[in-house]
């Protein structure tokens, strides 16, 4: 009796499983397909696209957002969100330029990391132990970090310059084997990120919390501690991206980073990570970042379009991708 009943079910499950696999592949590799297609079209359409200089420039421009988006990926894995990264990124940049001017290269890296890490730590503590919504806590963090940044830069009037002879400039302006340091840094960071996700117990814990927090807690996983570490890491990475941009532009500019948190979230979602948490890939985030950057680059190549088209196209693609993801998920359930 039971065998007769299970057989059709098993067949159904099998078909559903195949379907699910297909959907997951689209979910994970959809952005990659769009990216490859866009690059192909662009290299046929524009002579200046597939040149070494242009590709290096895309990689360099994407590296700042990539570092931020890596932290955001882990935060979203836990089912949370970090709206503070744009402000923290700008804060890191201003602090780095100021410290490079006053105390030299070492301080230019350490000071921003300490301050930005501390902001991430406090947010993580409030979220994990105060049980407040990450959205609200990091929204307050966005305001706070921007306020602090304006406070130390005389309401944005002072622009700190990195001295011309400072070794700090090499961090983002130097290169190895013809590839700028920031790109190497992104490769190393994402490699470490993938190792943490797949080869340590921290990775599955992060995903378990995002999947079902109560269950993770009942299984005895260190939910609060993991969340604190995740938000601290996000603050550190955003601060480090600020260090990079300060080194690259040789200055600390107060007005950067507005809306960067939204770009980072877009990149993560484009990469196939569910905003609900519990699933996703780190590689996908890198693809999402590159996709956004290639769109920007292509729109620059089309002489008649200004940067506003970039927003329109990025927003349109993001909407199309999430609608598609949702639609595919719906076909599986049915």
């Amino acid at each position, binding site marked *: 009796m039971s065998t007769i009943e299970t057989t059709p079910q098993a067949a159904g499950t099998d078909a559903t499983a195949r379907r699910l696999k297909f959907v997951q592949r689209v979910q994970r590799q959809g952005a990659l397909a769009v990216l490859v297609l866009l690059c192909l079209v662009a290299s046929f359409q524009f002579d200046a696209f597939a040149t070494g200089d242009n590709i290096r420039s895309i990689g360099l421009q994407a590296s700042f957002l990539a570092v931020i988006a890596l932290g955001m990926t882990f935060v979203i894995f836990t089912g949370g969100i970090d709206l503070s990264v744009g402000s923290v990124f700008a804060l890191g940049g201003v602090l780095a330029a100021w410290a490079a001017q006053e105390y030299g290269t070492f301080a230019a890296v350490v000071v921003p990391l300490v301050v930005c890490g501390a902001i991430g730590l406090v947010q993580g503590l409030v979220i994990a132990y105060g049980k407040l919504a990450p959205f609200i806590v990091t929204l307050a963090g966005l305001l706070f970090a921007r306020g602090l940044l304006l406070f130390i830069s005389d309401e944005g009037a002072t622009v700190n310059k990195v001295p011309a002879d400072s070794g700090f400039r090499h961090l983002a302006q130097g290169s190895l084997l013809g590839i700028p340091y920031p790109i190497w840094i992104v490769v190393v960071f994402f490699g470490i990120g993938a190792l943490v996700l797949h080869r340590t117990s921290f990775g599955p814990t992060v995903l378990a919390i995002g999947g079902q927090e109560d269950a993770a807690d009942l299984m005895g996983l260190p939910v609060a501690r993991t969340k604190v570490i995740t938000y601290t890491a996000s603050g550190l990475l955003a601060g480090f991206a600020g260090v990079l941009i300060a080194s690259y532009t040789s200055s600390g500019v107060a007005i950067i980073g507005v809306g960067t948190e939204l770009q980072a979230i877009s990149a993560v979602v484009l990469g196939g990570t569910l905003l609900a948490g519990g699933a996703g890939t780190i590689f996908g985030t890198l693809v999402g970042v590159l996709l956004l950057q290639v769109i920007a680059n292509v729109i620059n190549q089309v002489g008649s379009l200004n940067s506003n088209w970039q927003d*329109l196209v990025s927003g349109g693609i993001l909407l199309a991708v999430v609608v598609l993801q949702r639609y595919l998920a719906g076909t599986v359930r049915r």
Partner: protein
Amino acid sequence: MAEQTATAADTAATPPPAPAPDAPASRRRPDGEWFRRNGVYLGLVALVLVNLVITPHFASTGSLRLQMVQVAPIIVVSLGMALVIGTGGIDLSVGAVMAMTAAVIPLYIGYGTVGAIAVGLVAGVLSGALAGSVVARIGVQPIIATLAIMVGLRGLANIVGGQIKSIRDPGFRSLGSGSLLGLPWVVLVAIVVAVLVWVLMTRTTFGRQLVAIGGNARASALAGLPVKRVLTTVYVISGVLAALAGVLLVARNQASDPTQLGRLVELTAITAVVVGGTPLTGGQVRVLGTVAGALLMQLITYTLVAHDITNSVAQMVQAVIVVLAVYAQVGTRKRRRSRA
């Protein structure tokens, strides 16, 4: 309703000693609940009193008028946001909708004041309908759907509107700087919107359905409520109100600046709603609280700036206040849950 009943029952039950484990929670609860419901008004009154004492010219007509005119568009946006948050959603696109409205007004000003305003409001309806459909019918999370619209629509507004343009239309001028019976038009519009939203939430079926869906969308659907239609409508309302706020700002500035108009307004509006006591989890909308929340945040900034405290410090203080306000609410809500 249910909360008031619960509170009354608790007060009645307090005099005789209740069973041991439940006693501390239920004795503390009425105070916490009262604070959660009324904390924002308390804060507002306290801050007004403090300002009457320490801030010169605070109660002067000119100063009050300026504060009111400044806060009016924020109140209008926040009320739409409160409805969306009541359904458990969020609308990040409101600032971009304001920019879009600002972008189309100069293009259609040739059709007269009313024509231009109508086109501006239609832009809000369309954006809200798009957000609502994607959220309600396709099931995309509100934050990501409205984020995509926010980014795309801001770009579109800049493409359509371009640079800052001054508006010389007399109709817009009187809307922006004129008044009726001593009240500026801008403020009157905000009051009318607040009353309409209050009536919508307390006197109509739609209001009840909205709150029910925010409390439990699945149960509401099973109970036969038109979940998709209500959700879509809520986002349309939010879009229209954002567009209306855009109209008010254009009228006040006598200029349209799609690049800057409405930047970060979504965050200000969310803050006003949350400080006003509406939980982000949905299932409750506090209309008066939202108005008070917007007034409170405005007054905090004003107080700090009037005493030569710089914008940067004011911003940091606001951030701390937001977290404390939400913490106070979550504390009482948790106690309520533990009792149930």
